[in-house]
């Protein structure tokens, strides 16, 4: 492997890692910070992608589609939290697992009824549709780089929100003792509704801006679900920084895994997770208590 090749693979790995973070960001919030196990995360990712496709074919612009879709997903998230999730906070976490598993089936079927089972493509916005040549026959799509930028912004934003703002503190406090937060005069119910909706919107947003790269197809959420959990858990629950680093690590591992040990490529991520957790049972940056 020569140096240029190695560097490009490094870039690939980092870029893929950022993409993973993008997809996992919503889960970081809902699962990592609020402590709700949301198996339907992938479904919201899929919904985002389908919204991006159907709205951009209506409006002719991905940007417009995203601007319309985000409020829609926020409303969807709020509705779900108020209607369903809210009733489970006091119960065993596993009922969240059950409920969100049910939601996967519901959303998948609704998707089929509303949008059908076809594979669709979404055009990259013209502004970002060119590539930067790297070697004589390889170039790098600008859109991918742009997404990486968005990911970094998101990561910084999330980190700031969770670690530095009072809202972030309230959310984290709510995950450990809701009653106490309420007794301090904080409407944790409302906050949780909003933050859950934000998490959903993030998942959907990931689906939207990823749609031009990944295409839009049935069950696309199922594939990302597990990897998102892996990211959040390897990083350490509750840590945005951990999630970011974990996604980069996984991105690199997968990239180099495919190139260096192609026979074992499928296993690499899980092997990595097993090693990390056996070595550090609380994830890379997890566990303050």
């Amino acid at each position, binding site marked *: 492997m020569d140096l240029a090749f190695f560097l490009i693979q490094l870039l690939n790995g980092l*870029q893929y890692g950022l993409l993973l973070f993008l997809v996992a960001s919503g889960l970081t919030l809902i699962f990592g910070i609020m402590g709700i196990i949301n198996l339907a995360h992938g479904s919201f990712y899929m919904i985002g992608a389908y919204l991006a496709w159907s709205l951009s074919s209506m409006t002719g612009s991905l940007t417009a589609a995203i601007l319309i879709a985000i409020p829609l997903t926020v409303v969807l998230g709020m509705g779900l939290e108020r209607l369903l999730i809210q009733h489970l906070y006091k119960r065993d976490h596993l009922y969240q697992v059950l409920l969100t598993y049910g939601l996967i089936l519901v959303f998948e079927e609704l998707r089929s009824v509303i949008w059908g089972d076809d594979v669709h493509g979404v055009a990259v916005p013209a502004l970002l549709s060119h*590539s930067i*040549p*790297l*070697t004589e*026959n390889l170039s*790098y799509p600008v859109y991918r780089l742009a997404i990486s930028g968005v990911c970094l912004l998101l990561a910084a934003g999330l980190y700031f929100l969770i670690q530095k703002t009072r809202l972030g503190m309230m959310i984290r406090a709510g995950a450990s003792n809701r009653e106490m937060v309420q007794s301090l005069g904080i409407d944790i119910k409302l906050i949780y509704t909003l933050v859950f909706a934000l998490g959903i919107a993030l998942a959907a947003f990931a689906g939207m801006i990823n749609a031009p790269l990944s295409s839009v197809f049935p069950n*696309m959420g199922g594939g990302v679900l597990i990897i998102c959990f892996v990211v959040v858990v390897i990083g350490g629950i509750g840590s945005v920084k951990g999630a970011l680093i974990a996604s980069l690590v996984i991105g690199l591992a*997968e990239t180099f895994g495919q190139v260096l040990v*192609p026979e074992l490529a499928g296993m690499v991520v899980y092997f990595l997770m097993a090693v990390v957790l056996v070595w550090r049972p609380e994830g890379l940056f997890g566990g303050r208590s």
Partner: protein
Amino acid sequence: PSGAALAQQAKLKVGLMLPYTGTFAKLGVAITNGFKLAIEERGGKLGGRDIEYFTVDDESNPAKAPENTSKLVQRDKVDVVIGTVHSGVAMGMAKVIRESGTLWINPNAGADEVTGPLCAPNIFRTSFSNWQTTYGLGKVVKGKGHKNVVFITWKYGAGEQAMGGFKEGFEKEGGKLIKELFVPFPQVEFQALLTEIASIKPDAVVAFFAGGGAAKFLKDYQAAGLKGKIPLYGSGFLTDGVLDAVGDAAEGIETTLHYADGLGTKKDDAFRLAYAKTYKQQPDVYAMQGYDAGQLLAAGMEAVKGNVSDKVGMIKAMETAKIDSPRGAWTLSKAHNPVQDMYLRKVVGKENKVQGVAWKALADPARGCKA
């Protein structure tokens, strides 16, 4: 009334075991549509008997395949099973079908084994074997003057078989498969391997992907700047059903398959028209395969005049039938896989335009078939 007459009055029980939910739902629907179209064209009857359908959604889940198959075979006691899309599911079906002896027409799943080691008198296929879809491609790619080629696919049975077929065909012509690249199934992150391709600089790349993965691959190939620099070929599934999704990323790519757009034969035109009229959408290769499954069943039923209990007679008739298919006429090999022309197609706009025949009457070698 005699037993045969009684049998004549009863409906023919047809079991459809296809994916109706999940990734392959659309394929399942297309096959069902095609199949039913073939029956409708015969007045809704086969060999004088009405049809009663039994459907099972196999969810493309191989783990449930034996159970789902036995639903049709044992619960519903169907006379014939039509299915399925996913090769792994087909493997599970084969197990049950071979034990029960029920007639099975496979309208898609290309696992070589089905008409190889697992072949049986009651097992038929109207689609292709994975080997078939790429074997002829070897000659094509060599014919274009490419000597050193890279093959890329998912690491799973179908991918490996398609690669095997290509390798055999290509190396027979004197080409060299210099690298086999595998992406874990069903992952769709190709960037690392595209980079590797760029650094290997082969004369050409051959790919075997389908559905959402194919769409993503084509787009990534273009975005990485490889398109136009290193020619891309593939089995037809690479560009089937995804052209809407990929924009111009597939433009000009050549593939081989047993079907194509713009064949222009009378039969094909008629089929397309009828299908479009009935279902308000264009047929695809899957619909065509379903349609042929109907035709093959019809051939058998007519030969025995609806008396399915004459299994031997029916199988005989089906084995020797010459199917007038939209893809062009085909017959069955000894292992009950179509002996068919493989077309060379090229993506032009939103169509897989036929360029010619890559291989005339290609027969699967049916390795391991002892029947």
